[in-house]
């Protein structure tokens, strides 16, 4: 018997309308865990680098994690993986909600989709019964509306539906896949789904998911809940409220947005507004938020309820996901009310809440600069908010200028020309980043921004504090019960980290410590993404519930496969290295590993070179950021090394 996993994948060929249930190789679980790890293995094996993201040969994989469907609190992520239309590299995005557990209970770990349907269809997975159904009546409909209609027509109120909206259907490069209160937003996976003419996947499952060592396993789950309760009663002092608790983060509960509004930039990732947050704003935003929020909502089997249903007067109801309330607000230099209003449309269309507002702000800046003219924007209303609504609509329909903007700022700037590229200033690897512009280079963040394979800072950053604490007392207090550190030395790094002087950024933490810190944070994300754990309980917040010391036993008890810290770390490293190799095969090299030029005012080219050099070495990569033969061999992936050598990406060194 297979434990925790079902041992079966569903293979769907949309071109031929073929459906197959295929047993997976249990050895792959030991090597790659599941979720992101086994997705990467499939993409390496089956999608050669020549394959265009928008083509029938590309695969789109929806996977539950290894712990999905078990009672492990928060193990609810669906890991969607494919190749990104925007970056042309591997694109993966995780969504919470209820889909992953339902898929496991239907008897599958993954749905692997290939081909392209001639007409718009949706997939209905009901335990062993799987059908491809006509979706022509759903064309153009909003994501939530689509889910409602599907549930009704199937008469299955308990089915879970992941759907695309207009943006996905029209292959917008940053279209999302929406599922109730959650979404897989980054890197345009909704566009890939649209390219396959797959409007939605509905799933219902009523089968068991088995646990290998039940008594042991449930004890770990109870310990996790106990810790969540403890943290609820004891928020961390010494950090802003948004960083004090667990969750992903608690954007809907917290009104104090001083930290985001003063530290993050507004408009097209340009302006810091250090004096924005006043008592009046604080009061009015609190009121707006409380009026808009109907109920705090959790994902499957998680107590943290960091989403909320929104009932804002005059707009259709929807569910808000963490930070989206501020991204539109700040890009439009507007008010929180605007954020609540436009998110209703944005989610119905199914677009990424980080990239979309930046693309619109970018277009408006080009207009101000005279690079886009009235001719390009014929029919655009006056007023920034109205313009946001108008441009959003053009983009998801790919109408007029919207067709160009739908490819994101990098590709749009290239097409527009005339100096537009200067305005697409906030990208890494062709992908829009958090709007952050800071003063002094932070070595930890430099490495995370440069090398993160997800190309999204929130998917690599985490539990090491983002900045030093000002007093030694606070630091000592913080490290006292910091049990999550993989090694005591991390406490030293933090204790010695000062706001000013010799032991401050950019030269502290020193390069070798920086490498270790970044590697630790990244490793936790790779474990989470493979077992399907929400980062909000694990890799993302300070002092999380899951960590390197309780994970191995918990995963072992669930699966019956014995992991210890070393072998779990090795599996995470294997997955991380494989994804790197997939991207190397698609052309990723050192020159791509750069944060935006204006990310920090003060840059240190020598230090930055050294950081990359040392980090690559630490990771077992060569000077171009490509895993070496030895590294790949040690990870049991010599087949990857051979392939890279054959393609001339790695040079055979012995001869």
């Amino acid at each position, binding site marked *: 018997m297979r434990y925790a996993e079902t041992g079966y994948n569903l293979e769907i060929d949309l071109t031929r309308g073929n459906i197959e249930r295929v047993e997976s190789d249990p050895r792959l679980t030991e090597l790659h865990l599941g979720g992101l790890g086994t997705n990467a293995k499939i993409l390496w094996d089956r999608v050669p680098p020549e394959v265009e993201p928008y083509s029938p040969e590309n695969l789109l994989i929806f996977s539950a994690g290894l712990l999905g*469907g*078990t*009672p492990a*609190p928060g193990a609810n992520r669906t890991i969607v993986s494919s190749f990104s239309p925007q970056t042309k590299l591997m694109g993966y995005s995780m969504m919470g909600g*209820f889909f992953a*557990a339902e898929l496991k*209970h239907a008897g599958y770990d993954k749905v692997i989709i290939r081909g392209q349907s001639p007409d718009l269809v949706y997939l209905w997975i009901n335990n062993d019964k799987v059908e491809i159904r006509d979706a022509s009546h759903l064309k153009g409909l909003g994501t*939530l509306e689509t889910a*409602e209609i599907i549930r009704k027509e199937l008469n299955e*109120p308990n089915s879970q539906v992941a759907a695309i909206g207009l943006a996905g259907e029209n292959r917008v490069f940053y279209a999302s896949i929406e599922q*109730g*209160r959650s979404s897989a937003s980054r890197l345009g996976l909704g566009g890939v789904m649209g390219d396959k003419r797959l409007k939605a996947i509905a799933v219902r*499952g*009523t*089968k*068991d*998911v*088995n*646990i290998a060592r*039940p*008594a042991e*396993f*449930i004890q770990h789950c109870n310990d996790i*809940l106990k810790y*969540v*309760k403890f943290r*609820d009663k004891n928020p961390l002092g010494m950090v802003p409220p948004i960083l004090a608790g667990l969750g992903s983060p608690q954007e809907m509960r917290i009104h104090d947005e001083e930290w985001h509004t003063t530290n993050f930039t507004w408009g097209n990732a340009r302006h810091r507004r250090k004096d924005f947050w006043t008592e009046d704003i604080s009061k009015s935003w609190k009121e707006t938020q409380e009026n808009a929020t*109907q*109920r*705090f*909502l*959790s*994902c*499957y*089997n*998680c*107590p943290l*309820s960091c989403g909320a*249903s929104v*009932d804002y007067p005059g707009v259709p*109801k*929807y*569910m808000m996901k963490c930070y989206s309330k501020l991204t539109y607000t700040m890009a439009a230099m507007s008010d929180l009310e605007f954020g609540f209003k436009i998110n209703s449309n944005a989610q119905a269309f199914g677009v990424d809440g980080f990239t979309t507002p930046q693309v619109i702000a970018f277009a408006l800046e080009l207009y101000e600069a005279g690079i886009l003219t009235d001719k390009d924007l014929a029919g655009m209303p006056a007023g920034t908010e109205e313009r946001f609504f108008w441009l959003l609509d053009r983009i998801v329909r790919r109408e007029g200028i919207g067709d160009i903007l739908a490819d994101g700022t990098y590709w749009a700037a290239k097409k527009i020309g005339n100096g537009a590229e200067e305005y697409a200033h906030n990208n890494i690897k062709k992908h829009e980043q958090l709007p952050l512009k800071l003063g002094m280079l932070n070595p930890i963040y430099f490495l995370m921004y440069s090398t993160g394979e997800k190309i999204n800072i929130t998917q690599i950053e985490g539990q090491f504090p983002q900045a030093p604490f000002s007093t030694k007392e606070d630091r000592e207090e913080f490290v006292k019960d910091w049990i999550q550190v993989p090694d005591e030395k991390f406490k030293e790094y933090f204790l010695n980290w000062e706001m000013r002087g010799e032991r401050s950024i950019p030269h502290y933490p020193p390069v070798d410590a920086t490498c270790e810190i970044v590697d630790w944070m990244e490793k936790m994300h790779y474990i989470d993404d493979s077992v399907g754990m929400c980062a909000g309980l694990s890799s993302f917040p300070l002092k999380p519930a899951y960590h390197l010391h309780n994970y191995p036993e918990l995963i072992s008890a669930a699966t019956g496969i014995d992991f210890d810290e070393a072998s779990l770390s090795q599996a995470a490293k294997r997955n991380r290295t494989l994804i790197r190799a997939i991207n190397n095969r698609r052309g990723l090299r050192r020159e791509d590993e750069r944060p935006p030029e204006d990310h920090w005012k003060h840059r240190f080219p020598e230090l930055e070179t050294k950081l990359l050099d040392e980090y690559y070495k630490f990771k077992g990569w060569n000077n171009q950021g490509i895993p070496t033969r030895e590294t790949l061999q040690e990870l049991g992936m010599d087949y990857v090394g051979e392939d890279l050598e054959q393609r001339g990406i790695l040079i055979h060194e012995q001869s």
Partner: protein
Amino acid sequence: MSKVKKKVKTIKIDVDKCNGCRACEVICASFHSAPKYSSNNPARARIRLIRDPLKDIFVPVYAGEYVEAECMGRDKYVIDGKEYGECDFCRAACPSRDVFKEPDSGLPLKCDMCEENGPDEEPLCVQWCLADALIYEEREEEVEEDVKLGDLELGLKSLADKHGLRTLMETVARMTQKG
């Protein structure tokens, strides 16, 4: 019939606090698997969350008695402007719907207040509801003694209702012979 003291166990359900996480279903299903916690399957839970987030409907419902036939009429509640579905508040394992039935056999499920867990432990769904939407309360009452059907009897009764007592007896006889 004589009077006996009986502990009345109540779970107070505060629907306003429910965040829709379904942890109650998860832990109930896991606890009642055999051996305990050896599998998970919310479709076997003895509590079911009726969930419609866009209508703001969140009703955790406990599995009550098995009934042979569906109701003659249905109720539809409107509370605070929210219109609930027919049967939303009903605890019965009833032929009209598939909740509170084992997914494969169709045998009815019933909340047993986790009695196997011993008298000092709160029901598992209460323990796992960190939102405090489920609150356990206990009091003593004097009631008339009556005979209670056990789990097996209940299961058999439902099978008898479904297939007829005769077919059931014949099947059991056949199975014993094959034994």
